């Protein structure tokens, strides 16, 4: 009924493929780095000195209560004005890392707090150090229990990478924008882009679920239901 013409869009599939590749790279970097930030922050929140705990909580609240777009602007436009040189892709990865870091802090924290005190006491009674208790007794059950929430968050940060097109990163959305301005097949481009995002979201979900099975099912830990409001930055 709309008279759709996908021809001109597919003629620019090179740009789409490159954009898709960039989306993958942004997402993968943010997922790896953001998880590390979140895990460290959650550990600090759990057993660090009081001022540091407070600092972590402030970080989490600030990030969770401001839009990703504004965080991205502060990093991309604000940092250079303070003398830190940063390109658009670096700014995107940094913003996504900081963003996912805050959300995953809360998720990891819920996992850590789900490990019963008696487990920690049993570890202490076996002459383990605090760090050993965290690493060997708390960590695996904590992550296993919140894995489903963590995976949802990974997918959300992948979708959020689209906002990096605002600072002209040519990821999937940015590439789509360029193609629509060249071909004027705007609706068609975004249908294709939407389908690619959807497919990527589903594939990531399945891949992470499989990874979770591999990592944790042998460990026999069941996930817990978290009452965390689902998010999108």
């Amino acid at each position, binding site marked *: *009924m*709309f008279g759709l013409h996908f021809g001109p869009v597919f003629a620019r599939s090179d740009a789409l493929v490159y954009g898709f590749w960039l989306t993958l790279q942004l997402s993968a970097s943010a997922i790896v780095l953001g998880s590390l930030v979140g895990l460290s922050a959650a550990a600090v929140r759990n057993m660090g000195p009081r001022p540091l705990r407070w600092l972590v909580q402030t970080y989490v*609240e*600030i990030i*969770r*209560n*401001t*839009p*990703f*777009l*504004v*965080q991205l*602007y*502060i990093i991309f*436009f*604000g940092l250079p*004005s*303070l003398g830190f040189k940063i390109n658009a892709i670096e700014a995107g990865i940094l913003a996504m890392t900081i963003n996912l870091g805050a959300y995953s802090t809360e998720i990891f924290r819920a996992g850590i707090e789900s490990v019963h005190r008696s487990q920690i006491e049993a570890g202490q009674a076996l002459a383990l150090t605090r760090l050993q208790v965290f690493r060997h007794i708390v960590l695996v059950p904590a992550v296993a229990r919140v894995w489903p929430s963590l995976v949802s968050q990974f*997918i959300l940060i992948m*979708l*959020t990478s*689209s*906002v990096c*097109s*605002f600072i002209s990163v040519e990821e999937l*959305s940015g590439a*789509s924008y360029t193609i*629509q301005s060249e071909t004027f097949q*705007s*609706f068609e481009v*975004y*249908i294709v*882009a*939407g389908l690619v*995002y*959807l497919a990527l*979201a*589903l594939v990531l979900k399945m891949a992470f679920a499989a990874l979770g099975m591999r990592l944790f099912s042998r460990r026999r830990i069941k996930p817990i239901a978290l*009452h965390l*409001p*689902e*998010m*999108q*930055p």
Partner: protein
Amino acid sequence: MIRNFGPSEILFLIESARWTLLLTFLAAAFGACGGLAVALARVAQTRAIRNFATGYIAVVQGIPVLILLFLSYYGLSRAGFNLPPIVAASISLAIYASGYLGDIWQGAIQSVPVQQWEASASLALTRPQQYRTVILPQAVRIALPPTVGFLVQLVKNTSIVSIVSVVELARAGQLVNNATFQPFPVFITVAAIYFVICFPLSLASRSLEMKFNAYRGG
């Protein structure tokens, strides 16, 4: 001419937050209607309806808000509706909200114990009566904290419609930055205004959650 980032710019930013709030309100209102429909469809007795609702949620949650925005913006204009950007923006945000609210509310409806259905059915209530008098009042209590929490996401995501030239808070920040070339103070101010809107909602969501847990525990 480069302007300084002064009180009148700050005032402009604060005023533009009205549009952020209006967008949030419209999206929440229309999204709530859609979300309720999706939630009820998800627990409908007809399998095809349930599958459709499941698919709808998967699609909305699997596509970035930005793409949803462009799809409604260009899709509507291709269909012959030449709507002002703010309407297209509200529609796309409402679609986004309906996908998440539908999911949250379906969970809430299903967490009402099955005995409640059985008990109300044994009182010879029709299905709509069961919903109205027994199930939904309980589901609302369960759904309230995550719903308020989702409003925070909605407020933040209104920033994305700045790309179609709706001068809400994020777009206003860009304009002020273009005029003053002081990105750091400008965007920190913008972030602070968002924070002032979102943080109370986050706190409310959390305290509702706590109240609800206390209720469930006792």
